[in-house]
């Protein structure tokens, strides 16, 4: 087994912005949201509703959990640690008190310690990839991380920007949409899933990698591991301590629900169908 003495840290950064309404019928289809607010028992059917003032989505009472792509990222980091290629896995998340739950899940999966960057209230509502990547860049320098792994995008905002921005701020190489990654001495071989197929690149450490769906199968945090994880430390940091300004340069103008499905029209013959299509200007 090849040992790398260079890689000291693998910082696995978590995004808590994921909603687990998988498989539950959501009347207005929404691959979105969550983040912040009270941790409530997941109801069988969760309807995501747009807030009355249309500035966002109702997040009160919606269960928040780790972004699925970030789960894959954490799993990859822990795999590296199990292969003894890295010394320590640090799980980081930005947000209010509730994100500690997500960090605990990462610790239960096998991370060594956690860092909770406290962002709450108005700041949290406007927290976006730019601010998060600034925080990560500052933390990476502070912790002297050699590798940052995160999910390719958050399923609530679908930005797909944090990884790339972090790499740019640190001036590190990046391996995004990774479906496979191998550590070879001080270089990282990454197989990326791109539109045309697969691209294999070799990048030097320190680097940023974003995890795609097929990178691995994340393990489940079993109860005994959750218990053990309670002993692991989670450090508390504020963005100001890292010298980061979390002020947002974006303003959400409007959030709308997807259009309601129109009722279908039944036709008797093919001629009728063609007639109707012509009427609608589609033919």
């Amino acid at each position, binding site marked *: 087994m090849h040992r790398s003495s260079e890689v000291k840290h693998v910082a696995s950064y978590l995004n808590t912005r994921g909603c*687990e309404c998988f498989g539950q019928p959501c009347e207005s289809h929404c691959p979105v949201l969550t983040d912040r607010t009270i941790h409530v028992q997941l109801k069988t059917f969760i309807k995501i509703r747009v807030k009355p003032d249309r500035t966002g989505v109702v997040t009160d009472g919606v269960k928040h959990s780790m972004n699925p*792509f970030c789960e894959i990222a954490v799993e990859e980091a822990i795999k590296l640690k199990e292969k003894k290629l890295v010394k320590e896995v640090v799980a980081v998340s930005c947000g209010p008190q509730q994100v500690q739950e997500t960090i605990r899940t990462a610790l239960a999966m096998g991370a060594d310690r956690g860092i909770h960057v406290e962002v709450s209230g108005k700041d949290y509502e406007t927290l976006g990839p730019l601010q998060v990547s600034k925080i990560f860049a500052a933390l990476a320098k502070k912790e002297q991380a050699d590798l940052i792994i995160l999910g390719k995008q958050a399923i609530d905002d679908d930005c797909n920007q944090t990884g790339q921005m972090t790499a740019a701020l640190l001036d590190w190489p990046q391996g995004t949409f990774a479906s496979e990654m191998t550590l070879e001495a001080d270089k990282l071989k990454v197989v990326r899933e791109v539109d045309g197929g697969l691209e294999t690149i070799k990048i030097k450490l320190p680097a940023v990698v974003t995890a795609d*769906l097929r990178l691995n199968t994340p393990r*489940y945090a079993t*109860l005994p591991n959750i218990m053990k994880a309670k002993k692991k430390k989670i450090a508390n940091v504020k963005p100001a301590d890292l010298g980061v300004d979390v002020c947002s340069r974006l303003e959400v103008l409007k959030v709308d629900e997807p259009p309601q499905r129109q009722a279908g029209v039944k036709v008797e013959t093919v001629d009728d169908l063609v007639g109707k299509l012509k009427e609608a200007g589609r033919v």
Partner: protein
Amino acid sequence: MSEIEVLLAEVELLFLGREYPKGADYSRDRLRAAFAKNKDVHDPEKIKELISRGEFVVKELEALYYLRKYRALKKRYYETE
């Protein structure tokens, strides 16, 4: 000794059952019924057997949840042919 193991198995299944698609209540009730049914089993061999069956169910549930998540993500983010 085996009492503790049984208890741990039950709690683990309880936690896992919370995300069951048919609802946390459904899985909790089924779990309670299953454990109550075998309450009077004292033979250590049989107990071991039942515990290993519980572990099997744990693995099945984990696989179920993983597949559900994977399929949801695949459907949402990747083009299906």
